[in-house]
């Protein structure tokens, strides 16, 4: 089998980097948030792969927690974004810079 842990890791790191890049690049808060989730998924993927190749189940159990936490985070985050949109009528980060200097 040529596909081993390394390939999974590479994929995971690539996803992580793409997510990070998205956070850097995008101006839309919602999309930024999606990219952050993408980073979490990248970690999850690596975790599952490690768990499988290491033969310990703890990694997989950890994924449960990660998914739960991510879901809670998304809920709160979206609530904040919505509330902010109501106030400011925008979700573009460059317009959300009343706090500075």
């Amino acid at each position: 089998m040529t596909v081993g842990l390394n390939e999974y890791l590479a994929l995971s790191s690539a996803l992580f980097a793409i997510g990070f890049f998205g956070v850097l690049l995008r101006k839309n808060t919602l999309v930024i948030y999606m990219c952050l989730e993408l980073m979490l998924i990248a970690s999850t993927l690596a975790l599952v792969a490690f768990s499988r190749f290491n033969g310990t189940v703890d990694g997989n159990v950890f994924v449960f927690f990660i998914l739960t936490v991510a879901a809670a985070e998304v809920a709160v985050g979206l609530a904040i974004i919505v509330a902010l949109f109501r106030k400011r009528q925008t979700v573009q980060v460059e317009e959300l810079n009343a706090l500075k200097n």
Partner: protein
Amino acid sequence: MNPDLVKAFSLAAEQNRWAAILPEVVLGCLALMLLVLEIVLPKRDQKIIPIFAIFGQIVVLAGMIFTYRSDFIGDDSLFGGMVRQTAESQFMRIFFVIASILVSILGVIALAKQRMPKIEFFHIVIVVTGAMMLLVQSNHFVLFFVALETLTVGLYILVSYVRTNPLSLEAGLKYLISGALSSAILLFGIVLLYGVAGKSQIDSMNFGQLHTFLAANPGNFLASVGVAFVLCGVAFKVGAVPFQIWIPDVYQGASTPITALLAVSSKAAGVSVLLLLARTVFEPYSGFVIPLLSVLTAATIIFGNVAALGQQNVKRLIGLSGVSHAGYLMLGVIASFTQPQAINAIHFYLFVYLLASFAVFGVMVHVAGVDDADQQLDHYGDLARERPFLGGVLAIGLGSLAGIPPLAGFIGKLLVFVAVYKAGLNALLFIAIAGVVVSIYYYFGWIKAAFFPVWQVPVTEGEPETRPARTPVAAPMGVLLGAIALASIVLGFYQAPITAWLAALH
């Protein structure tokens, strides 16, 4: 039933000794009870709920102090190795509860100016405190991550709590994005560590076993990256450069009690975790961790102090000064690698930092108007004349933060610096000293604004008063602030209470 499972359950029942984390359990129950009370009590009686929350926490605190148990310390098997208590974590737990009580009290005052739901505030503060308490005694990355996320998510909510104020929401969003980003990085680090170390059927997310693995495999690339990424996440909590950039914005937007929570508890949690991880778990990798921390520390001290110069908004100011305090604390962490006494110094520092910060925040909350984000130095004009008490407390708090003798902050800094010097970190020490000197400038600028009758441009006829009205100090709050200020002074002269306490925790 599967006999294996039965065995596992009975083992778990043996290991899950809830008594060890009784305070956290009680706090959780207290938090739930608040919600119950909100439902049960009629609207007009709900005013007592915050008082209930505060008293409940005081009871917890009293319980922790008076029925202190050190017999769990060092037990590796608590909760299947999830929890491991040490003298340091015991101290931090008490620390968090004290901070939480103070935050709740500030919350009562601050929320009175807002028309927001109030009960949830206290609920979340208590849950966050519980999470922090678990965080500092976690011995396993799962609990670590979960506690950390609970803390972080709770803070997202608290920061954006005053949703009538768009600035609060904006702060929440900024905290959310940067927090989530740092969580993602942290998580990736954890995953890497787990993956590298987990080959031999060990529970590699357990700190003890991870340390064993790291000690056996020095110089593993993936493990190094994992360590580095975890430190990134911790650095975010501590507020170390370059993960500090969010601080002023978020501190400004958050309501004052939450700013205090961020500045004191969250930062302290970060430092405590940093101490735990860097000094024990990642100790085999100190070869690169120490230089890394040194660079971050130097940058943190310099940036925090320099950026605070000329800052007119006091919340941003306190945020940036907090960055520099994080730097001093990290300095202690670095020193603790060779000088174990630095740990005590850090804890002493944290405690006096707590006192001083709350003295300042206590004053801020009384000076602030409805718009919590708008707290300018100018608003402090003539404070000492109009409210000598607040002025005095502010001066003592700021003086202690600046580390001016005879206030306790000086002793804290001194102990840290002595340890640092003993550890031979001369360059860092010089940076720190320079930082202290620079810091005098802005702390003193604040005192100047409050004390020296020079600033205020008189309000011309017809123009509205730009300064928000000052909240009167209620008697219990006065007593509390006075006590905090007094403690800051007394600890400057007589440090035995804290040092003895720290010694007794073992």
